[in-house]
Every structure is written in structure tokens, then in C-alpha cells.
């Protein structure tokens, strides 16, 4: 399988041969940053387009068709529109926090996005406590949402923000627990290492029962974590008009909008990485010929296929299920998911201690 590290190493040697080390590293950081943001935007555009097409398919509609083939550049139009739209400042709002909030949300989203290993050798932030960093970075988003709700001086925004605070902090627990289940299985917190350990079978197969339970909990909690239906209470259209971003317009709203979709991708990407093997092809121990054929397919294709499969699954759920009520959301988390998650962790420990996994 192609190792992307060869390309990065080659660039590094080329740069160091013409300039001092410090400058080279600075330039590399700059390049990686630009690539990251570009990838982020491309993923956002693909996600928004996918959402519109997928929901149209579920609803016996066509979705965008007029701009470009099959309406494929529809989202580009939206981007131009958003960029040229007026950004309204609200009187009696806390202007500094009001303007800061969308950037907090997008910052958290970009930092979490940087953690995902896309292909062999193609991981941006990869260190031994990667999972811890991912959890920490993604929870900054809550602060942004709370700030947005608080500073816009609107009651709808405030209720939306409070709902979101209650919901996201609760569900972070379940996300953490289900990831922890896998950490117990792998005894590492490094994303690249987690992927490498799945060379002889993905964790959802290797960890069998507890891994499947953890996967389901992760999908539910992850869905709630990114405020997608049926957990989209913070921005419940029919209740709170637009929730915490009611008062935002133009690109500030665009940032929230983009972050929502990329967060969905991040959740799916992490699910794909820790349960479905990330960029690791499907390997079945013993079937060497089959494994070799699978290895011909590049890693990033494996990764994106898995991630978008989970995205599609979550979209399916969103467009079919009605929204929960706030007390039901909290009941689901604290009375069901957390206890099940804890028991499941225990189960996984037993599985690991007695070597019951494959």
C-alpha cells in the first residue's frame, strides 16, 4: 500500500537542502495549514451537496439540478451568496463575543478535523494522546455555541444555547466511553496506531459484542454531539426558529452552517477510523490473495468510502426520525446510554483480560 509519508519526506528533504531547518518547517506548517483548510472547505461543499441530494432522494424529489451537471456546483453559488451577504450587528449585544462565537465553533471543528488520519502517512496531528486531544478540541465548539446564544440578546438563541450546552456536555460522556472501549482493546490513544492494529481485521469484527455495542452508542451519541436530527434541538426550526444562530447572518451564519456539516463528517470519520479500520483495507486473515487485491485500492478511498457510508447512515436517520424532546434526550443519555456504556466498558475489559477477542 502506498505510504504518503514518502511524499512528505521528499518535500522535507528538498526544502532543507535549500534553506535552514527552521524556515523549512515554518513553510511546511504553512502548506499543511492551507491544505487542511482547503480540504475542510471541499469536504464541507461535498457534505452540503450530499445532504441536499440524499434528502431529496428520500423525499421523492430531485434536489438541485439547475447549476452544473446534476446541480453539482449549487453549493459554490451558496458560498458566493454567503460571502456577499451583509453581516448584521445587533444592538444591545455583546459585540466582541458575538463576533468571536462563530470562529470558536469553526476553530474547534478544524482542530478536530486535523486529527483524522486520511491515508497511510497522511495524518496531520498524530501523537500518543491523539484521542484525548480530539475530545478536548471538539468540545471547544460548545463554548462557541453558548457564546453565540448568550451574546445575541435574543431569547430563542439563549434557549437554543442552553439546550445545546446540556445536550452536548451530556453526550460527550457517551462518546468518550465508547471510544474508551476501543482504547482498552488497543491499549493506545494514537490514531495512526489504532488504524495499524486493524490490519488483521477491523475492530468492529475483532472486538465483537462490546465493539458493536460501542459502535451503536457512538453513532447515537455522536449524532447528538453534532446537533443533527433527531437531536437537533438547539436549532429546532419549528420551535426556536434557528436556535443559537437565529441572529447571525451572512458569513457568520455560514460558518455555523459549514461547521455543522463538517462536524458530522468528523464524527463519521472517527467512527470509520476506530471501528471500521480507517484507511485500512478489508483484510481477512489467511486470504492472502484477497488481501493483496484489497491493498491495491488506495487508503484514502477506503477512508472516504467508510466515512461517507456512515454519513449517509446518519442522514437517513435524520430525515426519517422526528425530533426528541429535551427531557427525553437527557433521559436517553443519563438513564440508558451512560450505564450501558459503563457496563460495556467493563465487558470489554473482561474480553481483553481473558483474550476473548480475535
Amino acid at each position, binding site marked *: 500500500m502506498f505510504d504518503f509519508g514518502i511524499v512528505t519526506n521528499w518535500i522535507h528533504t528538498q526544502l532543507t537542502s535549500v534553506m535552514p531547518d527552521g524556515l523549512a518547517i515554518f513553510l511546511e506548517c504553512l502548506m499543511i495549514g492551507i491544505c487542511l483548510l482547503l480540504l475542510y472547505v471541499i469536504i464541507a461543499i461535498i457534505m452540503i451537496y450530499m445532504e441536499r441530494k440524499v*434528502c431529496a432522494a*428520500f*423525499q*421523492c*424529489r430531485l434536489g438541485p439540478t439547475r447549476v452544473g451537471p446534476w446541480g453539482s456546483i449549487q453549493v459554490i453559488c451558496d458560498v458566493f451568496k454567503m460571502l456577499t451577504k451583509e453581516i448584521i450587528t445587533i444592538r444591545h449585544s455583546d459585540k466582541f463575543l458575538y463576533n468571536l462565537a462563530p470562529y470558536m465553533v469553526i476553530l474547534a471543528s478544524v482542530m478536530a478535523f486535523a486529527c483524522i488520519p486520511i491515508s497511510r502517512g497522511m495524518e496531520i496531528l498524530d501523537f500518543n494522546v491523539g484521542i484525548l486531544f480530539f475530545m478536548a478540541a471538539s468540545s471547544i465548539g460548545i463554548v462557541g455555541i453558548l457564546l453565540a446564544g448568550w451574546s445575541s440578546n435574543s*431569547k*430563542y438563541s439563549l*434557549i437554543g444555547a442552553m*439546550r445545546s450546552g446540556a445536550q452536548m456536555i451530556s453526550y460527550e460522556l457517551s462518546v468518550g466511553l465508547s471510544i474508551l472501549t476501543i482504547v482498552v482493546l488497543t491499549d493506545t490513544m494514537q490514531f495512526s496506531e489504532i488504524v495499524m492494529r486493524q490490519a488483521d481485521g477491523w475492530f468492529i469484527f475483532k472486538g465483537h459484542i462490546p465493539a458493536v455495542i460501542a459502535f451503536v452508542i457512538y453513532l447515537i451519541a455522536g449524532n447528538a454531539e453534532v446537533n443533527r*436530527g*433527531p437531536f*437537533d*434541538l438547539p436549532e*429546532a*426550526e*419549528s*420551535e426556536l*426558529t434557528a436556535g443559537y444562530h437565529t441572529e447571525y447572518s451572512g458569513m457568520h451564519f455560514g460558518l455555523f452552517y459549514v461547521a455543522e456539516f463538517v462536524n458530522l463528517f468528523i464524527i463519521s470519520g472517527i467512527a470509520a477510523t476506530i471501528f471500521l479500520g480507517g484507511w485500512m483495507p478489508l483484510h481477512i486473515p489467511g486470504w492472502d490473495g484477497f488481501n493483496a487485491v484489497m491493498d491495491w485500492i488506495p487508503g484514502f478511498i477506503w477512508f472516504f468510502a467508510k466515512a461517507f457510508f456512515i454519513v449517509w447512515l446518519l442522514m437517513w436517520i435524520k*430525515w*426519517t*426520525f*422526528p*425530533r*426528541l*424532546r*429535551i*427531557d*427525553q434526550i437527557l433521559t436517553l443519555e443519563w438513564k440508558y446510554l451512560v450505564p450501558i456504556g459503563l457496563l460495556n466498558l467493563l465487558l470489554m475489559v473482561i474480553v481483553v483480560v481473558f483474550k476473548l477477542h480475535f
Partner: protein
Amino acid sequence: MENRIDMKEKIAAMKPSAVWSEAGDGMFRVPATSFRSLAEKLRHEEGFDFLRSLTGMDWGEEGLGCVYHLENTSTGENVVLAAIDPDRENAGIPSVHDLWKGADFNEREAYDFFGIKFLGHPDLRRLFLRDDWKGHPLRKDYDSSLNPLNMENEETSNDAPSYEMTKDGSYILKRHPLFEDQEYVINIGPQHPATHGVLRFLVSLEGETIKKIDVHSGYIHRGIEKLCESLTYPQTLGFTDRLDYLGAMQNRHALCACIEKAMGLEVSERIQCIRTIMDELQRIDSHLLFVSCLCQDMGALTVFFFGFRDREKVLDILEQTTGGRLIQTYNTIGGVQADIHPEFVKKVKEFIKYMRPKLNEYHEVFTGNVIARQRLIGTGVLSREDAISFGATGGTGRASGWACDVRKRHPYAMYGKVDFKEIVLHNGDCFDRYMVRMLEIEQSLNIIEQLIDNIPEGEWQMKVKPVIKLPEGSWYTAVEGSRGEFGVYIESRGDKSPYRMKFRSTGLPLVSCIDTISRNAKIADLIAIGGTLDYVVPDIDR
């Protein structure tokens, strides 16, 4: 009005000052001073527990007053009372809001339109017009130049006035605050996706729990009743379609039937049959839209599109015959606008065959869904007594266990001759309100199925004089609209236009009970309750 003779004697014995007047349906005219005791007796001793309609009236020289249509839900007896106060400037009628809860909003409406002060009413604000509106528009002496378009934002006053009468005949005005200073009041509407139009709720919250709701309506009050007074009878027909646009056929059916009743015109079987089929098609259309909107409000967007997909099929059939999609303007006085399209029968049969299996799709996607059940079962419970007292008819009343279907209570058109079940459920919660409508779609399909092959031959438009004049008198006719009893009250003075025309709104009672049933619910429940009550705002505001 079968047992009117018995009641006539009883009331004459109860209150000698009540005068029977024969013209039209007939009614008892009672002076305002003795009205309250008669009403109490009728409510408590005779069991008239359902206030069908309350109509404010301006009788010119005779003074101002109200017409009350009462029904005893256990025996089906009907009685019509009129309370009159000859003092035009300071008309006061005792309030009956404690006897029939539905009177609350209706009295506010009558105060708004006529300036009648209801003594003892706890919250006599204007219901539809702005608080700073000058005069009372439905009075005959109203000067419309008093109120030019006012673009100032309306101040929401926080106190409710009430009037009491002293011994010497003057009024005392008292004011009660609606919300305390400490309460967290949020404003839902008038532009809000879940209010189904332009209704406005002021909701007092504690956390997410609702403590109190104050309903503000009138954002789409178009003054239809006043407009009707200056138009001829055929001209008034155009407005009914635009009242409750999801019950266009039934509304117009009610008005035509009322005028026909007053004219003494009997329409042919063919017309009756066509009207019945059209009413039921319209009901299916409306219930499909109800399901769609409920699901949209609750976040299950896919079902919204399913509903609209199937609704288009109904609209196609309607359009082929009537030429209109939403507003058909099909019924006329003494018939229908045009004969049914040659393909009508075939299309309807195809639709019935198409629709039955599709209903299962809704049940699979939404009815059986765990989240939907969790959210609907047990929320917003309306008891049977409250439903009757508020006059919440239609699917809402039937979900509370009140068999209030006008098609069964006072059969009209072909409904006496077809076999269908009146769906009555007993929990009164949101889920039952939803299920009633789903099951009613099946019943409507049954009715259409029975009639579609047997549309009798005959004329589709009776011979009617070019200028229609009604004799003196007053008439009330009700039909089962898509969302409850839709009634038309006409008072005629022998002219070619009505002296007073009142539409019994199907939505107003539904909205008036929203405060009662959503207390201690969550905001999200308010959306589900509003969705399942299924009101149409232009129908409330008229």
C-alpha cells in the same frame, strides 16, 4: 331542532320575560338583565353543555346583543337565545364564560367588534384588532376613516381589563396583570414556522416548562363578516373558500346550504351526492396536509413530502372538475358550478385504490416510530368535559371521546344514507388527535366508495332567480368541516344582502383551549399540541 316545542314551553315557564320570535329558525329574545339566570338554568338543569356559536349583533334601534346557539350533547336538543341591551352606548351583557369556557374568546370577539361589555369577564381585551383601534368595526355606525394604516409597532399591554356593574348602572373598570415582572416570557409568532400562519403566543416559561400562554390573534383578521354585509348573497360565496382554505368545499357547502334553507330550496340528489363526494375529497386533502405539517413541526421532514405527494393526487381530481387547486369556488346557491368531469368517476376510483396502501406507509414511517409515540402519547390531554365546554369539535373533540360529528348529529346532504363509522377515541392526547385524522381518511374513502358508483342522474344546478333575496329571519346551518363544526349564521332583513353574517370558526375554540392543555408541558410539546389541534389561522381570524 327536533324538540324545539318542548323546550319552548319549558323556557317560557322558566323566564316569562323571554319572547319567542318565529322568523327563520326561531329564537328566544331575552333582556340582558334576565339573561344570566336563564343561561345558568339551561346549563345546569337542562344540560345544555355545548355553546355552538356566539354571535355579536347590532340590531340598530333595538340595541346591541348576542345570539347564543346552545346544544345538549346527550339529547341533541338545540335552543337559540338572544340577549339584548337597548343601550347602544354602554351595552352590557352578563358574561357566561364560567358556564361555557368557549364563551371566553367569543365574548372577547363580540367586545372587539361591537363594544358590548361582558360583565364579569376576567379578561376583556380586544381579540383581533389592535389595542389602540378606535371604534368597533361591525357596528352599523362605524366610520372606517377613523383607523388609517398605522405603521407604529403595537405595544403589548400587560393588563387585562374587566368590567363590573354597580347598582346605579355605571361600570367599574378593573385591571389585572397578565404576567408578573419576574416571569420569563417569550414570544412565539406571529412569524414563526410552528404557528401555521400568523398566530402569536406569549409563553411564560420556567426553564422549558410552560406556565401560561396568552394567545394573540387577529394578524390575519380580514373583516370578512363586515364585507359580506355589503355584498349580495352570490357574491359572499367567494369568501368562505378563503376562510379555511383546507376546507374550501365544506365551508362553501355550509353557506350554500344555509342560503338554500332560508330560500326553502331543495336541491336535487345529484347535487347532494356531488357535494358529499367533494366534501370528503377535501377532507382527505386536509387531513393529509395535517399529517404533513405535524410531522414537519416535529422534525420528521420526509413524511411532510409523502403527504404532499399524495395530496397532489386529490388536487388533480378536484382541479379537473372545478378548475381550482386550493380554492375551488365550486358550490353555488342551488347547485354546483359545473357538472363533474367525464373522467371524475374513473379518477376517484383510481385514487381510492392508490390511497389505501399508502396509508400504511405513514403508519410505518411515523405512527410506529418510537420517538413519535413518546412525544405524542400523553401530551396535551384535553378531557371530554373541557372539549365540550370549549366547543372543540372535529378531530380534537372526537379524540377526547366526544361524538361531535355534525355528519352524524345533524345529517345533511347524503350523510344520512351512507354507512360510515364515526371515529371516537378516548385519551384526548396528541396521539389520539393524530390517529383520529388518520382513521378518518379511511372512513372518507369508504364514503366516497359507496357514492361514486351511484351518483344519481339529474340536474347539477337548480333554477334560481337571478336576484336572490332572503325573507326576514335568522338561520344557522352547520357542516362538518375538515377540522370541526363549521357553521354559518345569517340574519336577513329581506334584502339581497345579509344584515349580519357570522361564520362559526372551527379554529377559535381549538385555540382557546391551548392555554388549558399546554400548561406544565414543554415548549416542544406546545409544537406537538399546536400541530395536532390542527387549526388554520385565517379561519380563526376571519
